[in-house]
């Protein structure tokens, strides 16, 4: 017996509480963005007289323009995009190879390899800073974007390997067996079977790697000495002085730094939700 279908589902008290909770959380998340937005368009005098929460008395765009020119923003944008994009692609490729060996190939000692990757993941970046600094200085990659690309490809693929190994571990054996019965080599199974089927998961990884690398601060700050190599998050700090801070220009810079990731997220938003809900078999 099917339950009688209700035309208008009545909202229960629980539903309302849930709705209010969601609105509250959304508002809390939005507050910092709104404060940045409001202060980006205020003149310093306006800020000093009205405080951080008041609305701007007139729209003031000098803060944004100053920041754009002072740090040569398009250059920083390209650096960030280039580093994050390269890292995302490389890290996904490395993760796929590793996870194929561990999750599907079930190589010996895979548990230990995974434990090692876990440890690498939990290590704080501050601890790696000096060893990395000496290593890259030795090989002549200090103050070169490739030092940061190599570091983050390794860091991100450590996490990617860990995650993908778990995903590949549950990969239906029948499909792989069927493929090898058809005479497919290991390489062909990876390219023709495993990668296409797990593509939604891979694209989610790619997007996360991109955004995580984009937001990195400490290592780019340390390794990219010349202004010409700097990334967006490092450029944002260029405005903070010794004792004084220029709140309105800093807000403007935060706004400019935020927009690219926001746009990136909006473009790939559908891929993200699809990837998380997608199963491994069709």
């Amino acid at each position: 017996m099917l339950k009688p279908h209700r035309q208008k589902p009545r909202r229960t008290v629980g539903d309302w509480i849930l709705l209010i909770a969601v609105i509250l959380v959304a508002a809390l998340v939005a507050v910092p963005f709104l404060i940045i937005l409001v202060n980006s368009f205020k003149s310093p005098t306006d800020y000093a007289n009205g405080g951080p929460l008041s609305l701007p008395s007139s729209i003031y765009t000098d803060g944004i323009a100053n920041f754009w020119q002072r740090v040569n923003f398009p250059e920083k944008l390209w650096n960030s995009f280039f580093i994050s994009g390269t890292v995302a692609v490389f890290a996904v490729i490395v993760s796929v190879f590793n996870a194929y060996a561990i999750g599907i190939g079930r190589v010996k000692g895979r548990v230990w390899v995974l434990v090692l990757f876990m440890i690498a993941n939990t290590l704080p970046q501050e601890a790696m800073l000096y060893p990395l600094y000496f290593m890259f200085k030795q090989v002549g990659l200090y103050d070169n974007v490739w030092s940061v690309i190599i570091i983050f490809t390794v860091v991100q693929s450590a996490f990617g390997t860990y995650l993908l190994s778990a995903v590949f571990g549950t990969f239906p054996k029948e499909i792989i067996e069927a493929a090898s019965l058809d005479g497919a080599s290991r390489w062909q199974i990876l390219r023709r079977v495993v990668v296409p089927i797990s593509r939604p998961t891979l694209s989610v990884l790619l997007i996360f790697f991109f955004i995580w690398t984009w937001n990195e601060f400490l290592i780019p700050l340390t390794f990219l000495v010349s202004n010409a190599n700097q990334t967006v998050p490092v450029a944002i700090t260029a405005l903070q002085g010794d004792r004084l801070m220029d709140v309105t220009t800093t807000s403007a810079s935060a706004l400019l730094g935020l927009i690219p990731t926001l746009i990136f997220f909006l473009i790939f938003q559908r891929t993200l939700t699809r990837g998380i809900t997608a199963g491994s078999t069709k």
Partner: protein
Amino acid sequence: MKIKRTLTMLAAVVAAGALLSGCSTSAPAEDGKTLKLWHFESEDSAMGIAWNQAIKTFEEETGAKVEFEPKSFEQIRSTASQVLNSNEAPDILEYNKGNATAGLLASQGLLTPIDDAVDKYGWADKLAPSLQTTARYDDKGVMGSGSWYGIPNYGEYVEVYYNKDMFAQYGIAVPTTYDEFEAALQTFADNGVTPLAEAGAEYPIGQLWYQLALSKADRSFVDDYQLYKNPVDWQGTELSYASDKLKEYVDKGYISKDTTGLKAEDMGTSFISGKYPIMVSGSWWYGRIIKEATSFDWGTFLFPGSEMAPGSSGNLWVVPENAANKDLAYKFIDITMRPEIQALIGNNGGVPVAANTEDITDPKSQELIANFNTLTERDGLAFYPDWPTSTFYDQIVAATQELINGSTTPEEMNTQLGDEYESGVADITGK
């Protein structure tokens, strides 16, 4: 399909970028034709304006090119020891003065001792003794003696900013003695106005506390406190007076109890918006107050009844040991010490160290510089309370917060700070 296309696109972009950036590594040039220069002052600040002119003059006179890169304070602070140890080191950079910063780099051998250049160009004659203190460091990185490692272009000091309109409203004259100052605070408090803009979560409250101690102190106290010449008596006249007075200020309502949660930025903006009539803080606010405090008339005076004030030379020009073009760096420093560049600092809200007073035309700047000159003539720059040890800043903030909250007495605060001071100093001097 869509994802595949996106992936291909990304890969293409990445490949293009790889080609472009493959050829961008540069080796340090020892050609005497370029000067790689870093500083972290904003373009429209007094130093920014003056140094821009110095760069132009330098390029005209030497024919060398300046490769200037604006940096952030944070960036230089957190990466200096690594950069200076590599081939990417600039030829000259602005660096924070003090034991924990320039002193530390000097003791690690990362900075060039510039004694020969100091003699050659005669910079020592242009700098008052208390300005020289922060330019010289011994082999442990303690300031005050040893070789020269840097040259300051500007100074900074703590003074009293006051809102003339509010003083007039309550019929208060500008105080010239400490008693008059306290009477002024009392008059405001009686009228329900909290007189002092303060910030208990950052440096301002510690500087007020130190200023109070200085009003009972002489140079030998400062030498003991800052240069570790003799042990400091934490229950002695100077520091007991400071802590007692601070407590009194809170009890009498001269400082709001809420101040413990406020940052320096909050203090500045509340003075600029006219909420408080008095702010005791540094000359680094000057340019900003000129620009932003437009709704009332204001002025400054030195803390009444005190021969000394917190203050020091500004940040230093230092030359890294790995610099390629040291001689050009010295020439540049010399240009920044010329009267015309110094006058630019003075006329834009900064405090020049070697300006001719007749070159300063802006009346507000004349006041600022006159006060500074009064101080240096009295040998009155006493540095900052948090300088002696690397952790003292946070310890002073915590101790004053507890005092303001009423959870410690002035004696307890001094005992606690004294213990922390002594253990910190022992780490540095090894005694």
